[in-house]
């Protein structure tokens, strides 16, 4: 049974050889001077980046990204469904409606829990690390 793995080994070997060959070829033909200035910029013909990309993002971006995934997955599944819909008929319709129903429940959850708003007005801090924060917010306005 080990010979069944032979194609994999051949594949890996050729892959490694090819990658090595590319390095050798580029070191032979690339110019050895003029490596500065524009050449080293992140985007040679675009915006000049400001600061580092390694900063703390607001956690709300992640919520938005998650909500985006809900609808993204929904749309992606709808495409193949629409293509084969005619040949599958009623079963496909019912199955897709169940799928959409589950997603709509998720959407309703996000909506009611105020996650579609950038500033969450309804958020309540329980006891623990942020209880002092809650007291401050109540007194400020």
């Amino acid at each position, binding site marked *: 049974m080990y010979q069944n793995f032979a194609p994999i080994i051949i594949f890996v070997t050729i892959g490694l050889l090819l990658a090595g060959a590319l390095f050798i070829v580029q070191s032979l033909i690339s110019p050895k001077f003029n490596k500065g200035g524009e050449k080293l910029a992140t985007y040679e013909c675009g915006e000049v980046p400001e600061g580092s990309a390694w900063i703390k993002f607001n956690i709300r971006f992640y919520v938005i990204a998650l909500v985006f995934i809900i609808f993204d997955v929904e749309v992606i599944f709808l495409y193949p469904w629409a293509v084969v819909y005619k040949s599958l008929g009623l079963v496909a319709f019912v199955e897709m409606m169940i799928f959409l129903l589950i997603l709509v429940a998720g959407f309703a959850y996000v909506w009611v829990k105020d996650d579609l708003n950038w500033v969450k007005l309804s958020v309540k801090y329980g*006891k*623990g690390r942020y209880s002092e924060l809650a007291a401050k917010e109540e007194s400020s306005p």
Partner: protein
Amino acid sequence: MSNLLSLSDYLPEMILLGVILIAIVMDLVPATKRFTKGFILVGLILVAAFLYQGDTSASSLFMGMSAHDPFGTFFKWLFIIATFFVVLIAKYDDGMDQSIAAEFNILLLIVMFGLFLMATATNLVMVYLAIETVSISSYILAGMLRNDIKSNEASLKYVIFGAFASGLMLYGFSWLYGLSGSTDLTIIRDVLMTQEGPVFVVYISILMVLVGIGYKLSMVPFHYWTPDVYEGAPTPLTAYLSVAPKAAGLALMIRFFTMTFTDGAGETVANVDWTVLIAVLSAITMTVGNLLALRQENVKRLFAFSSIAHAGYMLMVIPVISTDSSAAIMFYLVPYLFMNLGAFFVAIAVSNHTGSYDLAGWKGLGKRTPLLAALMVIFLVSLTGLPPTAGFIGKVYLFSVLIKHQQFYWLAVVAVINSVIALFYYFRIVREMYFTDSDDTEPLRPHPILTWSIISCVIPVLVLGLYWSPVIDWVTASLKMF
């Protein structure tokens, strides 16, 4: 069976899914918000009713993905009982964040759905999907107390360990698939049976599969997450994690190993000696769990190590390839469910009063609240495995498998020594309750529902210790696997 036909055997799961969806929406509508918990409890009873109605034949569902058999149904009953108790009790733990109580219950139901899949999976893809359904919901549940730094820690440690274990298990699956060209457990067995020559590859894949399942069982050396997660997670979830996913892990292990790694005639497949491996791991698991539990000052950590030790006891019989060993494990899980849930519920009642899970808070409980202390003693006696409780009968069945099949006598000796070690740390709690005095003499007043849940956990522990033949009959009838 084809997909649509399979649905008729899949009614409990479908009802469970419906309950989950309706409960999510109910929690969002202000008018129905306060009925959510009641609805979930009614829904669980409905799932149980349909499980009871379901036929007892064994069949394969969804084109070999999942099985419908008495073996799976037995475990489903355990999951329903555990979930029911935990949903019922969660509200009365003062450490819980009540603003997310509904989410907690709904996520528990999703875990339960994953456990249902885990106990019935007969395909590698389904095994992985089931384990991930359980794990991902458990990660969120462990971090449910958002403002508690211990809970955050628990969630993060759980995720990192879980991801690593699933990764290794998936790698093992890929070896199995590479060997056999199929993800179906029985087909993999058929291919492994024809194997000649070196069995090195089979060793590796068994080892990798063992990592994934061992992580769910908190088997040593994959137990490192257990104490921290148990300590940081909300206590009702800790009670649940120590019982339900462990039972599901054992169900999966029994099914996986009997279907794939044995030849059906009491021998291991392809002469791979995995029985010795599991025997050694089981001995290490119970010893490490018991020894580390000795010096714990936090009750939740103590029970975390005790649950590791119990996983070791149950793993003890898996090396004996026989239906006797599955029967012994299944019988042991019934009292284990009740005694562990009960012990955690008493811990909740005590911590509602003291505000922490330190063992020092249990001082003088025997005088302050005689009822709770007496119930706790019964749970501890049963966890140690002393008569006349169900824990003793369960242990007798586990030991008798090793003696009857005349294999692994040394393992039985290790287990007996471990039971004696366990006696020491369980009775440290008893000593705190009865033989030390506390400045605080105020009696505990747990909510009546909490008290009655503890009492209803103690009844099976005592009754099954004296009259256990109905359960052993039920277990014997449930041995039929697809």
